[in-house]
């Protein structure tokens, strides 16, 4: 296709940052603060900054204080000081309050929309001279002759479903830079390539992930208690599955509600989306949303592996920061401060030495890593179920992670149990009444938009496996783990002479995709490859 076309146009920068999330923007801002003459560009696949960002989010402000000391004078548009914390254990019908673990005490923290926060950071970066390009997706890595990373290749635009150029075809350019900073967030598709190519994960545990599904609601007047932060564990997850909920009360009767579930769950019939919707119908939760309406919604995977799964974060010519590296502090349920700090750390590393070399060591010696080290055993502690996990969490918390042991993570895709080995699961799901009715309706609130006449960006590497093996062994879990109804098994009627036959095929509704990356992670055969669609495609999250 485009490889045979004319040579790509090239733009040159000193540093190219992939992804305008908190890590990428913090890195850009810090770079210009330290070295105003550096030419820094940030590219972002979403049409607008923040439109692909989805997070809780309660943030610790210390990192922001450091990066933008005056930020409290003109705070981001959604920024509500936390007033009160609640954590509860749910059963199908009851709710019991639990003592708040120290990691989850949020005094001094703020409830924000991370999307709005990024949209607020971007102009501050631009004011410092950073070039930010939303709507342009880094589709490939530009490698130098010596094998080092030399920049990125922007995806071509105006290519049809079959791969042919349309009238509007525009070849993507190359952006060359001595240093590329990967800040794509969880399971970045280029970061994934680089981790494999440079074997960055050779010495670390497999990465562990979760899926977070979130909705922003306008609740009926009087129900929202600004500053209230509520978390729960337990129902609707069984004790074998790690996860929980959050409800953050913001201003103007707006409430963010979400559900996070580890992707190492074992039941192929499980649907994280349905679990989230069931949570909303818990008797202690449902009244909050009755009479309200959804403003926006979506999903995004979360990187949960922590210290043991952290790959090497440097390679010739490039660095990994933020969730692209995997710096989220899961027990705190916070990654933003880690992302910002890692972006700043990468910036000072680059400003000092103009090289990627040594960044891995610098990061591992930093407070960012200390924080992860302390809590390293909490997530794998839950591999043995909720109760053992809670005990491990308590021990690790009391000992501040000082016990000389490190529990290990396993790969999420390998955790599904085959249907024939499954014991029947009883899920007392209730009939739902709150919006959204189903995943398609949910996608509507994500305002996701892809030109349908473009290459399908969810590549199935071995399509036969889907119909045959996966169908028999797991019953097509992609049709359930995807929160956006991208994957469907469709039965076609083939009318031929002498009668008609029915034929099953996997239908990929790529236009529904909200770029969460669950499929890339959870597919048991690892044959779904998420690549970036045309720049500017994807969800258009509003204040998520």
């Amino acid at each position, binding site marked *: 296709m485009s490889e045979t076309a004319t040579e790509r*146009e090239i*733009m040159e920068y000193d540093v190219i940052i992939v992804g305008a999330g908190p890590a990428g923007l913090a890195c850009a801002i810090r770079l210009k603060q330290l070295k105003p003459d550096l030419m820094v560009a940030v590219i972002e696949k979403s*049409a*607008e900054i*923040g*439109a692909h960002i989805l997070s809780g989010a309660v943030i610790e402000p210390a990192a922001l204080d450091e990066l933008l000391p005056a930020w409290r004078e003109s705070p981001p*548009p959604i920024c509500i000081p936390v007033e009160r914390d609640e954590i509860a254990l749910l059963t199908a019908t009851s709710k019991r309050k639990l003592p708040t673990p120290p990691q989850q005490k949020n005094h001094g923290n703020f409830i924000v*929309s991370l*999307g*709005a926060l990024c*949209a607020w950071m971007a102009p501050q970066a631009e004011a410092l001279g950073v*070039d930010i*390009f939303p*709507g*342009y997706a880094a589709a490939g890595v530009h490698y130098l002759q010596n094998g080092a990373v030399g920049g990125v290749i*922007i995806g071509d*635009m*105006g290519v049809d479903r079959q791969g042919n150029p349309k*009238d*509007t075809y*525009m070849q993507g*350019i190359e*952006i060359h830079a001595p240093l590329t900073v990967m800040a794509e967030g969880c399971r970045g598709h280029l970061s994934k390539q680089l981790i494999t190519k440079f074997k960055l994960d050779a010495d670390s545990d497999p990465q562990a992930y979760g899926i977070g599904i979130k909705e922003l609601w*306008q609740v009926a007047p009087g129900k929202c208690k600004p500053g209230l932060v509520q978390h729960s564990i337990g129902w609707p997850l069984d004790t074998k599955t790690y996860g929980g909920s959050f409800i953050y009360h913001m201003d103007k009767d707006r409430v963010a509600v979400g559900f996070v579930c580890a992707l190492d769950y074992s039941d192929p019939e499980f649907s994280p989306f349905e679990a989230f919707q069931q949570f909303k119908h818990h008797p202690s939760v449902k009244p909050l949303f009755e009479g309200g*309406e959804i*403003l926006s919604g979506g999903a995004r995977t979360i990187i949960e592996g922590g210290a043991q799964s952290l790959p090497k974060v440097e390679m010739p010519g490039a660095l990994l920061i933020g969730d692209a590296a995997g710096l989220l502090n899961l027990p705190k349920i916070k990654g933003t401060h880690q992302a910002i700090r890692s972006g700043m750390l990468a910036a000072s590393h680059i400003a000092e030495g103009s090289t990627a070399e040594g960044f891995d060591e610098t990061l591992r010696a930093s407070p960012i890593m200390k924080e992860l080290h302390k809590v390293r055993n909490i997530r794998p502690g839950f591999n043995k179920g909720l109760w053992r996990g809670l005990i491990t969490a308590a021990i690790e918390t009391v000992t501040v992670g000082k016990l000389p042991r490190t529990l290990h993570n396993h790969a999420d895709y390998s955790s599904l149990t085959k249907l024939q080995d499954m014991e029947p699961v009883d899920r007392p799901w209730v009939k739902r009444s709150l919006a959204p009715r189903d995943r398609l309706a949910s996608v*509507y*609130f994500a*305002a996701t*938009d892809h030109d349908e006449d473009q290459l399908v960006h969810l590549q199935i590497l071995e399509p036969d496996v889907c119909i045959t093996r996966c169908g028999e062994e797991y019953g097509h879990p992609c049709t359930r783990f995807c929160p956006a109804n991208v994957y469907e098994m469709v039965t076609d009627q083939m009318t031929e002479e002498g009668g008609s036959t029915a034929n099953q095929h996997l239908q990929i509704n790529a236009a529904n995709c909200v770029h969460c990356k669950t499929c890339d992670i959870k597919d048991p055969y690892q044959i779904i490859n998420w690549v970036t669609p045309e720049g500017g495609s994807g969800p*258009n999250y*509003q*204040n998520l």
Partner: protein
Amino acid sequence: MKILVGIKRVVDYNVRIRVRSDGSGIDTDGVKMSINPFDEIALEEALRIREAGLAEEVIVVSLGGNECQQQLRTGLAMGADRAIQIDTDADLQPLTIARAFFKIVEKEQPGLVLMGKQAIDGDNSQTGQMLAALWDRPQATFASGLSLSGNTATVVREVDAGLETIEVDLPAVVSVDLRLNEPRFVKLPDIMKAKRKPLDVISMDDLGVTAENDLKVSHYAPPPKREKGIMVEDAAQLVAELRNRGLV
């Protein structure tokens, strides 16, 4: 010849429109804003005319606060030569907008003015026609085909009855419909070039235009919800019901 293209900053066509619960307006908090898609088509057409050697300069014009500079810059990145922002914070109505445009027209003396057939927010479909009236020049609305020859433009118009072709002498105002063309993508280096292209800011006061006898919008409401109707038992009942209602 100069071509003047009017572009408006609007809530992106893909954004779900939500009326604020107090009826005071549309919730635009944190929503994506874009060039009105019809205006983008108008600009694309202007650029193609220039690229065909039939015009020398394409000027994009927008009315609004500084935020509309974002859309003007996008227009420049698409290929417009320069931009004019008519600076105003007021929510103006088409007649006032047309008057302001007319002032620019008098100054720039374009051979052609292009704009979208309507903006997807207010759905008024008035500004182009009003400008043509004030200017006392031809108008060709809802264009899905446009060709220039000498001092004449031949315009194919998408009208209810089909495709109507008219000929107008230039200068003229042409408002464009969806099927005229498909706008180009912006090339990344062109975004950088656009930053260096001229963008002039003129205030409404300097143009000497003030709004008068404005229409007042007093309340916004979501559209009424459709209600569940009746269920019929079989095809015969269905056809009978359709006949009953005069639908078949």
